[in-house]
């Protein structure tokens, strides 16, 4: 069940909120856990038991670590058990087919490939769950005594399948004690409405442009105009899709009394790739930084080690997005760019006019999406040739795509800038009352328009659900 759907918006959400608000404060975590498991079971009626298992394991690991506080060996054993089991689950369900496929191809073997379907959101919730055990081991957070509260944290429906990746410590205090006010609900509703509009009105409507171009691009080269339109459409689609989803999650978190971390900060206004990754999927980058990059030694071991660490982190980041070569390439692509910026380019970049810095970063990010979307090196190469004009400059169909999507494209470009947020902040300070009313109008309008697109939705994917 995606957030942007009739059953979620008008059946699941009201029912859950009804019980959640109805239950006394001490019992709200029960509603949270039950609704989380129900939400997950709706999409994965079988794999929901996997989530039950992994929460039980990590919860127990936490208890063991606390019980044997004085015994570093047992603590370490508990940590390793939990981390190994979590990573094994990820390996089995997400990476086994890929691995077996490649081993078979490389060694000419015929090992059995179980082709297990990927449990929805497994990459998100195993990472969240691991953050608890690791932080606890390091002494960065405190143990959760109640299984219900722990399971409620992992299975919390707003962030369960698509982030933001909420670390246990981010919400540890709120798991025990949180206040729900009408004001928070109102602010949450506004955030939710913003996210819903991004997803349903923008992402879902620009998406078909890329679908059309991609279909042609898989069959051969396409005219340059179509290729550029297509990859720009995907650039906007994935941003509005994913950031819209994160906004909805944060909005619902607020309605439930939580404060989730921000996940996007106008990534397409970045001035460098380094800057881009501070603004895109921020909770994932910070997870890898805390749990991989820094433990590896970060940038404290000299240039060579820093480069090694960056490459490891970015290969993993790539693979986190999916078990295939193109995601690995995508991660490496950014790893190399980040290393270049760090050691060579930065001082030159900083001297460029701002507009060139923006252009440089945006273009490289757009090229990055080619790696993300085209599954084999051959297709990636072919698409770059299309972008360069190997399939001609434009065809009649390019013109059709341009005329039918131009307006939406302009809207996307405007809406991905940071001006709206800045404007709102200033207007809020000067005309608080008018802005308050406008917020209410916006909530109604965005629900109304989104509903029109959802009642008969033929195209309503959610890109990050695959990861």
């Amino acid at each position: 069940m995606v957030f942007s759907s009739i059953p979620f918006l008008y059946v699941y959400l009201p029912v859950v909120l009804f019980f959640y608000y109805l239950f006394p404060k001490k019992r709200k975590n029960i509603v949270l856990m039950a609704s989380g498991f129900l939400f997950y079971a709706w999409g994965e009626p079988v794999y929901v038991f996997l989530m039950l298992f992994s929460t039980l394991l990590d919860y127990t690991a936490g208890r063991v670590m606390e019980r044997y506080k004085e015994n570093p060996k047992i603590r370490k054993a508990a940590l390793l058990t939990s981390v190994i089991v979590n990573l094994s689950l990820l390996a089995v369900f997400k990476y086994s087919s890929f691995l077996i496929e490649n081993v078979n191809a490389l060694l000419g073997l015929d090992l059995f490939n179980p082709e297990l379907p990927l449990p929805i959101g497994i990459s998100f919730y195993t990472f969240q769950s691991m953050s608890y055990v690791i932080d606890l081991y390091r002494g960065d957070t405190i143990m959760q005594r109640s299984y219900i509260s722990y399971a409620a944290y992992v299975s919390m429906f707003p962030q369960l399948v698509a982030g933001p990746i909420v670390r246990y410590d981010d919400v540890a205090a709120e798991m025990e004690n949180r206040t729900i006010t009408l004001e928070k609900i109102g602010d949450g509703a506004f955030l939710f409405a913003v996210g819903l509009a991004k997803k349903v009105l923008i992402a879902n409507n620009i998406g078909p442009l890329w679908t059309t171009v991609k279909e042609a691009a898989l069959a051969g080269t396409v005219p340059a105009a179509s290729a550029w339109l297509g990859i720009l459409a995907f650039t906007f689609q994935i941003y509005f899709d994913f950031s819209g989803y994160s906004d909805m999650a944060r909005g619902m978190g607020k309605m439930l009394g939580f404060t989730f971390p921000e996940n996007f900060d106008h990534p397409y206004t970045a001035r460098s790739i380094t800057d881009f990754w501070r603004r895109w999927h921020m909770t994932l980058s910070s997870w890898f930084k805390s749990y991989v990059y820094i433990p590896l030694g970060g940038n404290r071991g000299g240039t060579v080690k820093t480069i090694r660490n960056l490459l490891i982190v970015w290969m993993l980041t790539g693979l986190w997005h999916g078990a295939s070569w193109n995601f690995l390439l995508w991660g490496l692509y950014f790893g190399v760019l980040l290393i270049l910026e760090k050691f060579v380019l930065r001082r030159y970049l900083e001297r460029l006019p701002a507009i060139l810095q923006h252009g440089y970063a945006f273009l490289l990010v757009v090229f990055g999406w080619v790696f993300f979307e085209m599954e084999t090196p051959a297709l990636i190469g072919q698409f770059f040739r299309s972008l360069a004009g190997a399939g001609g400059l434009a065809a009649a169909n390019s013109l059709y795509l341009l005329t039918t999507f131009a307006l939406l494209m302009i809207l996307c470009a405007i809406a991905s800038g940071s001006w709206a947020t800045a404007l709102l902040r200033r207007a809020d300070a000067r005309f608080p009352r008018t802005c308050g009313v406008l917020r209410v109008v916006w909530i109604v309008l965005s629900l109304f328009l989104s509903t029109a697109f959802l009642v008969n939705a033929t195209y309503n994917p959610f890109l990050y659900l695959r990861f």
Partner: protein
Amino acid sequence: MKNPRKLKAAHVSAAVFLFLIFLTPILIFAVPKPVFLEDENKERTPFPSFNLTTIRDKTFMSGFEDYAADAFPFRSEWIGLQTRLLLAMGQKEVNGVYILPDRLIQRVGEADVQKVSNSVRAINQFAARFDGATYLMLIPTAAEIYRSELPAGAPTLDEKALIDQVYAQADGLATIDAYSSLSANRDSSIYYRSDHHWTSRGAYLGYSALGSQLGFTAVPIDLFNVEHASHSFRGSSYSKVIYDGVEADTINLYSYPAGPGVTGVSIFDGREWSEHDGLYFREYLEQKDKYATFLGQNQPIITIRTDAPGDSRLLVFKDSYSHSLAPFLALHYSEVTLIDLRYLRSSFENYVDLDRYDQVLFCYNMSNFTEEDVIKFVNLEK
């Protein structure tokens, strides 16, 4: 509490949001809805059955999602709004339908080469085994005839080229050119504005084109009586977009009083035969799907018997385009049998004696011809 005014607005936000999401489920579940969605011409999805099997294979979940969407209050108004919003955003095609100022045209996708070659091979094989004469007529859709009016560069199948290509591969049968006269008469209401079918006027052109090959002389069009049976037909294209910006269509029923009369219509629905009188099923004039006035809904087999002199019989493998064509054909044959291979999964010869027929016509519009893969069933073993 530094800003009490903003606080108040957030309260209103909360109240409005909660009101909307709490009210809607009541409208979905508690307000009774008709079983048939007239505007979309489809049955409303019933509530799915709830048990371990349907949960495990997730049919309960998908069924519930379809149920909630179909039972949504003011469903067709929402779809109409969606169409208007997409048009405002610059789209020219919605849900596979090009929205032109004066008509709706359904896009025909790229042909599936495999399906087309299956069909061509099946027709050739059939012609080789059938003792009488075999004919093939492929009818272009409105998307081909009004190609020049589609938005510049809009993708739609080059139906004319494909027709030529298929005809070139036809072996042991005669092919009939429907394209030329349809194209020449493009300005005279030969397709419905809101439906994917040709009108009776369009079907008449197909009938005239058939005459010279099948060996009858088409009755001149001005000898027919034309009855304007309904002026409020909104067809399948309308149902896909719920867009009332183009005029409703007229259902015209042609009759030729001087010609032979229809003595009986037998319909086989896959289980049993039933009898109908006449070619026009007028009860459909009061319903949404007014095109079904022509011989009703698609059925596996329809046999029309007439008192035409002589004893010549025609068998037609067809889609729904032939329903408005049949009244014209019935003027020249003592028996016309229409077979829809989409609805038969065993050999048609279990129900119909092929040897009784003098001529066999394969008659398909290009949308069905390229999308369906059923003509191959014509050669199933008895």
